[in-house]
């Protein structure tokens, strides 16, 4: 089983994921990722999509896999990795629908996604999750091993295969079109203190 429901309500997942697994993940869920994630960010995505356009095989088979938007700091001797928190996901919006099209199932980053990505997550049954932004030291503790598998010349932007254990994330955008960020803020907005254009209807 690749989605395991834990006693405290969290869900543990392990790639490769199939559509049925992704459907069990809902916006707001706390998920622990174990197993393999592939690290790739801006420059790597540009190259990956160029490879797809040229009809080439990618450096890893994306089918059912999870990509983590991260550019780690260099590892100190004796450590698997340096600091390794998420980077802003919307910069990958241009490339994400294409990656989902070729079988990618999970994405980990931080920050909101555009409408085209949220639609593509529904169309291709994918899930977007966020790790703690600015929590790179804590994130490093959950990464057991990593190696560069492509584009070493990109330095921090090289593609890495990572082995992670109980790497914690929140489900932000699920495959049913629910958005955790979208619904989390309104109940806390204090409309009476704000100019009119910033007021939101409260919805708990």
């Amino acid at each position, binding site marked *: 089983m690749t989605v395991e429901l834990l006693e405290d309500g969290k869900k543990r997942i392990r790639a490769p994921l199939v559509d049925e697994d992704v459907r069990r993940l809902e916006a707001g869920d706390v998920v622990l990722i174990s197993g393999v994630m592939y690290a790739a960010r801006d420059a790597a995505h540009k190259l990956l999509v160029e490879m797809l356009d040229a009809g080439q095989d990618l450096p890893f088979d994306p089918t059912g896999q999870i990509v983590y938007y991260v550019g780690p700091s260099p590892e100190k001797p004796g450590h698997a990795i340096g600091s*390794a928190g998420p980077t802003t996901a919307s910069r990958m919006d241009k490339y994400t629908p294409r990656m989902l099209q070729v079988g990618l199932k999970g994405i980990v980053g931080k920050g909101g996604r555009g409408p085209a990505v949220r639609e593509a997550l529904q169309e291709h049954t994918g899930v977007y999750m966020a790790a703690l932004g600015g*929590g790179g*030291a804590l994130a490093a503790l959950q990464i057991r091993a990593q190696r560069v598998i492509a584009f070493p010349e990109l330095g921090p932007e090289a593609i890495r295969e990572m082995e992670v254990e109980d790497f914690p994330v929140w489900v932000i955008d699920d495959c049913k079109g629910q958005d955790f960020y979208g619904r989390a803020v309104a109940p806390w907005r204090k409309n009476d203190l704000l100019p009119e254009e910033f007021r939101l209807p409260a919805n708990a």
Partner: protein
Amino acid sequence: MGDLREIDAAEITRTVRELCIEINYKVPEDLVAAVTRARKDEESPLGRQILDLVLRNAELAAEGEYPYCQDTGSTVVFIDVGQDVHITGADLADAIDEGVRTGYTDAYLRKSIVDDPLFERKNTGDNTPAFVHTRIVPGDQVRIQVDAKGGGSENKGKHAMLKPSDGLEGVTRFVLQAVVDAGPDACPPGIVGVGIGGNFEYSAILAKRALMRKVGQPSPDPRIAELEADLFEKCNALGIGPQSLGGTQTVLAVHVEMMPTHIASLPVAVNIECHAHRTGTRVI
């Protein structure tokens, strides 16, 4: 004319190197105090959990094995050179870059600078060049403040040439919109630096300078301090909260810097800093 004090450029290199290393592992105490205060005031249970993690991350980083954030920043250097100082031995810009180069390399910090923004975007491999703001000031000392500025929050900066008639209300709306647009991308809760006045470029530099203050330290000008308090309350009323998952603590502080401007102008710039606020100062 008084005697010139000679300062070896190597001392500037050493100072920049040490600051780069120190701030990326050990965030300033005023930042930790501000997050601790936010943790106490946060009303959302999830927000409190997140702020606990932020504080744990700071403690772990301070042990010196993992930088606070993997984005160890572009290196912004504010250097005030006393006019009675004579720097010897090397070009000042080279001395600063050498400090960045050795600090980022020796301390396993990420190299995040590309050599051109548009064509090849090739990583320079040593985090140089630093972005340097130099002032010549009275005296015979050199004051160096280094800031490791994360790219995610920097990308959320905004600038506008408002009309004088837009006034306080226009500035308030502009700042709030910047915080809303930054949303989760700038890793809230962070610090909002606002530069008002000057001209096109000075307003942006003022916004950056505003971030260099101790977190939450009010402006010495009571009118500006009042504006800061009002913007702080309104930003937090947005309910964005820690990591934009809802809550009462969206910003740790709002700092405003102002300067005179043209009769036709009301320049305003917002520079957002994530909770990974890494800065330190030394005086030579």
